């Protein structure tokens, strides 16, 4: 079997080569399964976290926060491109662990408060840092990527079904038995979108990005 380096992995994702991306996904999944151990509660949630972590990694690469520079895999941190000290797989595991921790924290919060109090997770210890040479458009996209990734699964599902798959509220209601009424679903959708907007606008303000 051909050797598969971190550089190959980054290039495969950048090229959007589906065959290579599938291979990358399979390899990452194998590594994740071998090393996840007893960190995650159950297999289903572990798989969800793995997929979130993979999307995070891929978006980092696609938005060039991780890139190959002078033959090394580098990452933007504190406004400069620094060679990564860990491998891509170690980075993936770190993201997965962080996601798991956020999920546990959210669940604890859900038990204490209203179900809709979400999206307050990435304030501290954020992954992102905007590269100095990144254009405003790039930074804007990164902020949105992070905000969408930080959404709860419930919100992501509702918004994706509505805005991406163009499903009607009745159809979403049939797909999601958790929402009992159409009005409730409409309110949830509105709140999810509103929070997402607030989060994005707040971050833009922090980074002095114009709307």
């Amino acid at each position, binding site marked *: 079997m051909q050797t598969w380096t971190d550089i190959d992995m980054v290039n495969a994702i950048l090229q959007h080569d589906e065959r290579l991306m599938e291979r990358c*996904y399979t390899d990452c999944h194998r590594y994740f399964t071998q090393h996840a151990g007893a960190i995650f509660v159950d297999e289903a949630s572990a798989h969800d976290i793995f997929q979130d972590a993979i999307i995070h990694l891929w978006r980092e690469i696609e938005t060039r926060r991780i890139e190959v520079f002078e033959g090394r895999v580098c990452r933007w941190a504190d406004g400069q491109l620094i060679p990564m000290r860990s491998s891509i797989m170690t980075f993936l595991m770190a993201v997965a662990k962080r996601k798991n921790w956020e999920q546990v924290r959210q669940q604890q919060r859900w038990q204490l408060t209203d179900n809709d109090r979400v999206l307050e997770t990435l304030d501290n210890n954020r992954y992102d840092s905007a590269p100095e040479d990144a254009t405003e458009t790039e930074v804007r996209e990164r902020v949105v990527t992070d905000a969408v990734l930080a959404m709860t699964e419930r919100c992501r599902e509702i918004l994706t079904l509505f805005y991406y798959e163009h499903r009607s509220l009745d159809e979403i209601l049939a797909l999601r038995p958790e929402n009992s009424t159409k009005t409730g679903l409409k309110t949830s959708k509105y709140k999810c979108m509103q929070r997402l907007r607030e989060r994005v606008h707040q971050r833009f303000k922090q980074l002095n990005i114009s709307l």
Partner: protein
Amino acid sequence: MTDNRNLYADEERIDAVDHIIFRELGEQARLRQKMQEWDERKRQQRRMRLLPVVSNIASVAALFVMGLFLQAMLPDTNVATEIRHTIELPNDTTTTQATDSQSIAE
């Protein structure tokens, strides 16, 4: 198909940021779909790998059951014992005949 992005335009202000949000939602949903496809393909491959193993096990099990069935049937027939007796008989006769002719000679 209706475009939900415009359907609720009045109640939800759509601005430039919303467009980036919709695009990002789409981008992440697309990646999730791909991952589902790959997971499904992996499951199918695993099933295909297991198929010959399962069929081999089934064949061995079938042979074993057939063996047990035959073993259960064997005592009822008694054919083997009868055949053995038929084969052994001439030998015994020969021995007796030899003994008889020996005694005559004496």
